[in-house]
C-alpha cells in the first residue's frame, strides 16, 4: 500500500466521523428523535469525539451534545454525570471561536433545567470560564457566554452571586454597548436575571453603570430588545426606593410611556411592570409617574389587552391610589374605575379578580367622594356577589370582604347602598345600616326616598338581637321617622289593623 492510500484511509475515517456528528446534530434538532438517539447510546459515542483531533468534528460534536442536552433533563444529567463539564470548561480557554460557541451552548443547555445542574456547572468552574469568554472579540462567542450565564443566574440568588463574583457585571454592561442586536438582547436579559433576586445584586449591577445604557436603548426599534430592557429596569427598581430613584433619574419616564403603544404585547407588559415597581415605593415617585400622564396610558393599555397581561396594570393603579387621596382622585378622574369594573367582569381567573378587587379597595377607601365614585359604577353589588359566591377562592373572598368593609364605611351615596340592604350577609349588613343611620338624620330628601323605595320596610323586617350594634342603628333610623310611619311599615301591621277592626263597635 502506498503512502497515499494509507492517508486516504485516514481521510475516509475523518469524513465518516464528520458525517456522523453532522447527522447526529441534524437529528438532534427534532425532539422526536431524541428518545431513539438516547437509546442508541449517543452520549457515550459523542464524548470521545469531543476530544477529536479535527477541530470541526469537535465543534460539531459539542453542538450535537448541546442540542441533546437542551431537549431533555435526563440527557443533561447524563452530561453532568459523564464528567464532560470540566473538559468543556478547560477547553473554553484554548479553542477557536466556533468551539467556544458550541461549548457555551452545551453549558447553557445543561444549566437551564434546574438549580442543581447550574450548580454543577458553576462548581466545575463554568462561571469563570464563561466570563473569560465574555472578553472575547467575537460577538457570537460573547452572546453564547452571556446566554449561558443568564441561564445559570436565573435559578436562585446564590447562583447569581456566583456569576457576579466571577466579574460578569461590568463585562455584560460593555456587551450592552456592542452594535449587534442579538448580543444586546442577551446581555439585557442576563442582567435582568441577575438583578431579580436580591437588592445587593441589583446594586452591584447598577454600580457597573448599567442603568444609563439600558435607558438609552428604550427608544430602539427592536421589540425583543425593548422587552428585555424594560424587564431589566423593572427587576432593578423593584427592590428599594433608592434603586427606583436611580432608575427614574435616568429620565426614562416620558419616553417609556410612548412604548405603551408598541405593537408587541410583551413590551407593553414589561413597561407596565416597570411602572408598577417604581410606583409602589413612595408617593413622590407615584406622583412623578402620574404627572407624566402615565395613568391615561396604563388605563388604555388595560382596555386593549386581555388575560394575565392585565395584572401589572391593575396592580399599578392600586399602588398609585394607595398612597394618598389626591392620587386616588387622579386615578378616578382618569376613568380608572370603569376600566377596573370591566376587568372585573371580563376576567375569569380568580387571582386577577382578587388583584382588581384590591385595587378598587385602595381607590375607594379614602373619602366619601372616592367611595361614591366606586359605588356609581355599581361595583358594590359585584363585590358582594364575589364575597358571597362559594366558588371564589379564599384570597378573593377575604379581599372582597375587606374592600366592602372599607368602602362601605365611607360611602354616603344612598341609592347605591339600597340594593345591598336586600342580599347582604349580616356582618356586611350592619355596616350598610350604619351608613344609613349616619346619613338619614340630616337629609330629608333622603328620608323620603328611603321610605318610598321600600328601604324602611326592609329595615323593619330585619331582626337583630337587642343590644347589638345593628339594633342600635335600626333604632336610630326609626327615630328619624314619625311613629305612625314606622308602625305602618312594621311587619304584621295589616293584621293588627284588622284585629282592631274586629273589635270595633260603631257608636
Amino acid at each position: 500500500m502506498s503512502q497515499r492510500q494509507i492517508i486516504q484511509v485516514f481521510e475516509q475515517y475523518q469524513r465518516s466521523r464528520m458525517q456522523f456528528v453532522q447527522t447526529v446534530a441534524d437529528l438532534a434538532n427534532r425532539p422526536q428523535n431524541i428518545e431513539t438517539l438516547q437509546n442508541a447510546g449517543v452520549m457515550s459515542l459523542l464524548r470521545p469525539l469531543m476530544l477529536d483531533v479535527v477541530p470541526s468534528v469537535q465543534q460539531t460534536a459539542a453542538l450535537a451534545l448541546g442540542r441533546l442536552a437542551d431537549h431533555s433533563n435526563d440527557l443533561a444529567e447524563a452530561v453532568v454525570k459523564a464528567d464532560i463539564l470540566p473538559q468543556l470548561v478547560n477547553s473554553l480557554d484554548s479553542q477557536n471561536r466556533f468551539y467556544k460557541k458550541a461549548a457555551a451552548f452545551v453549558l447553557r443547555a445543561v444549566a437551564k433545567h434546574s438549580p442543581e445542574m447550574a450548580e454543577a456547572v458553576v462548581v466545575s468552574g463554568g462561571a469563570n470560564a464563561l466570563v473569560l469568554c465574555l472578553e472575547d472579540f467575537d460577538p457570537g462567542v460573547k452572546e453564547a457566554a452571556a446566554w449561558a450565564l443568564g441561564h445559570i443566574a436565573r435559578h436562585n440568588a446564590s447562583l447569581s452571586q456566583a456569576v457576579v463574583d466571577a466579574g460578569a457585571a461590568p463585562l455584560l454592561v460593555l456587551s450592552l454597548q456592542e452594535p449587534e442586536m442579538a448580543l444586546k438582547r442577551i446581555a439585557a436579559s442576563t442582567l435582568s436575571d441577575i438583578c431579580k433576586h436580591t437588592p445587593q445584586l441589583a446594586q452591584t449591577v447598577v454600580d457597573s453603570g448599567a442603568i444609563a445604557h439600558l435607558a438609552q436603548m428604550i427608544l430602539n426599534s427592536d421589540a425583543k430588545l425593548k422587552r428585555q430592557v424594560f424587564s431589566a429596569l423593572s427587576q432593578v427598581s423593584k427592590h428599594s426606593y433608592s434603586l427606583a430613584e436611580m432608575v427614574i433619574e435616568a429620565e426614562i419616564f416620558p419616553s417609556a410611556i410612548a412604548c405603551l403603544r408598541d405593537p408587541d404585547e410583551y413590551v407593553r407588559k414589561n413597561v407596565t411592570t416597570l411602572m408598577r415597581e417604581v410606583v409602589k415605593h413612595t408617593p413622590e415617585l407615584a406622583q412623578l409617574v402620574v404627572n407624566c400622564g402615565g395613568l391615561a396610558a396604563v388605563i388604555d393599555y388595560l382596555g386593549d389587552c386581555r388575560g394575565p397581561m392585565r395584572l401589572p396594570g391593575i396592580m399599578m393603579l392600586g399602588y398609585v391610589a394607595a398612597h394618598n387621596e389626591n392620587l386616588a382622585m387622579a386615578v378616578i378622574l382618569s376613568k380608572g374605575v370603569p376600566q377596573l369594573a370591566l376587568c372585573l367582569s371580563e376576567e375569569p381567573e380568580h387571582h386577577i379578580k382578587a388583584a382588581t378587587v384590591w385595587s378598587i379597595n385602595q381607590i375607594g377607601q379614602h373619602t366619601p367622594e372616592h367611595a361614591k365614585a366606586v359605588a356609581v359604577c355599581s361595583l358594590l353589588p359585584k363585590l358582594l356577589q364575589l364575597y358571597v359566591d362559594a366558588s371564589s377562592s379564599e384570597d378573593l373572598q377575604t379581599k372582597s370582604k375587606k374592600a366592602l368593609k372599607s368602602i362601605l364605611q365611607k360611602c354616603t351615596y344612598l341609592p347605591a347602598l339600597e340594593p345591598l340592604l336586600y342580599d347582604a350577609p349580616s356582618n356586611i349588613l350592619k355596616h350598610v345600616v350604619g351608613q344609613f343611620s349616619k346619613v338619614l338624620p340630616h337629609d330629608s330628601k333622603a328620608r323620603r326616598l328611603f321610605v318610598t323605595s321600600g328601604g324602611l320596610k326592609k329595615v323593619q323586617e330585619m331582626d337583630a338581637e337587642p343590644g347589638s350594634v345593628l339594633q342600635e342603628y335600626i333604632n336610630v333610623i326609626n327615630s328619624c321617622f314619625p311613629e305612625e310611619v314606622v308602625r305602618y311599615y312594621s311587619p304584621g301591621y295589616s293584621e293588627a289593623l284588622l284585629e282592631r277592626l274586629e273589635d270595633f263597635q260603631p257608636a
Partner: protein
Amino acid sequence: MADLFCLSKEIEFRQEYFYRNSLAEENRQKENHAAINIQSWFRACKVRACISHLHKKAVIIQKIWRGFRARSRFRQMVKAAYFIMKMNFYDEMAVRIQQRWRGYYVRKYVHSFYARKNYLENITMKNEQVRKDLDELEELQRRERKRLEMVKEQKAKVYQAHRLHHLVSTKQRPGVFNSPFRRGPHEMELLLRQVKYLAPTRLTSRDRAFQLGTPGPAAPNFPETLESPRIKRTHSQHSSRPTLPPIVSKKPQTSYTLLQDVQNNLRQSAQLQCIYTAHLCQQDS
C-alpha cells in the same frame, strides 16, 4: 389663902392654858390648812389676774399681726389672680389668632382646595394630551410599518418581474397576464413591461456556495448552516461585507455532492468489483 387661890388660879390657868393649847393644838392643823388654802387661793387669784391680763394683751398683739399678714397675703393673691386673668385673656386671644392663622395657612398652602382642583384638572388635561400624543405616535408607527411592508412587497414583486421577464406580452402574442378577456392588463403585466432586463451576473463561488447552503471553500469547517438558529446571519449581512476572492487552497474544491459522489464511486467500484469477481469466478468455473 391667897396663895392657894393664886395656886388654884395658876393651876386653873395652867389647866386652862393646857386645855386651850390642846384645843388650839387640835385646831392648829385644820386652821393651818385653812390658812394655807386661803393664801393659795388668793395667790392664785392674783396670778390669774396677772396672766389674764397678759393673755389679753398677747391676743391683741396676735390679732393685729394676723390681720396684717392676712391683708398682705390677700393683696398678693389679688395681684396673682389679676395676673392670671390677664394671661388667660391674652392666651385665649393668642389662641384665636393662631387658629385663624393656621386655618388660613393650611387652607391656602397645605390642603389648598384650589391647588388640588387645579392639579386634578391639569392631570386630566395631561392625560388627554398624552392619549392624543400616543394615538398620533401609534398612528405614525403603524403607517411607517405599513409603508415598510408595502416597500417590501413592491420589491418582491419587482424581483418576481425580473425573474418572469419572459412572460411579457409581445405584439404577436399576448402574455399570460394580458388576457384578451380582461378589461385591461394585469398589474404584473405592467411591471413586466417596465422592468428592464438584467443579464444574470456571475456570482462569486462563495456566494454560490452560501446560496446552496454548504460551507464554501474558504469558510471554516464548522458548518454554519447547522448553527443554532438564534444567531441570525441574514443574507444581506453577508452580501454587505466586501466579498474577497477565495483563498486559493491546496485542497481541491469540494462540492456539496462530494459525499454522495464518493459513496456512488465506492458503490460503483464495489459493483464493478463484484462483477469482476463474478466474471473471474465464471471464467474460473
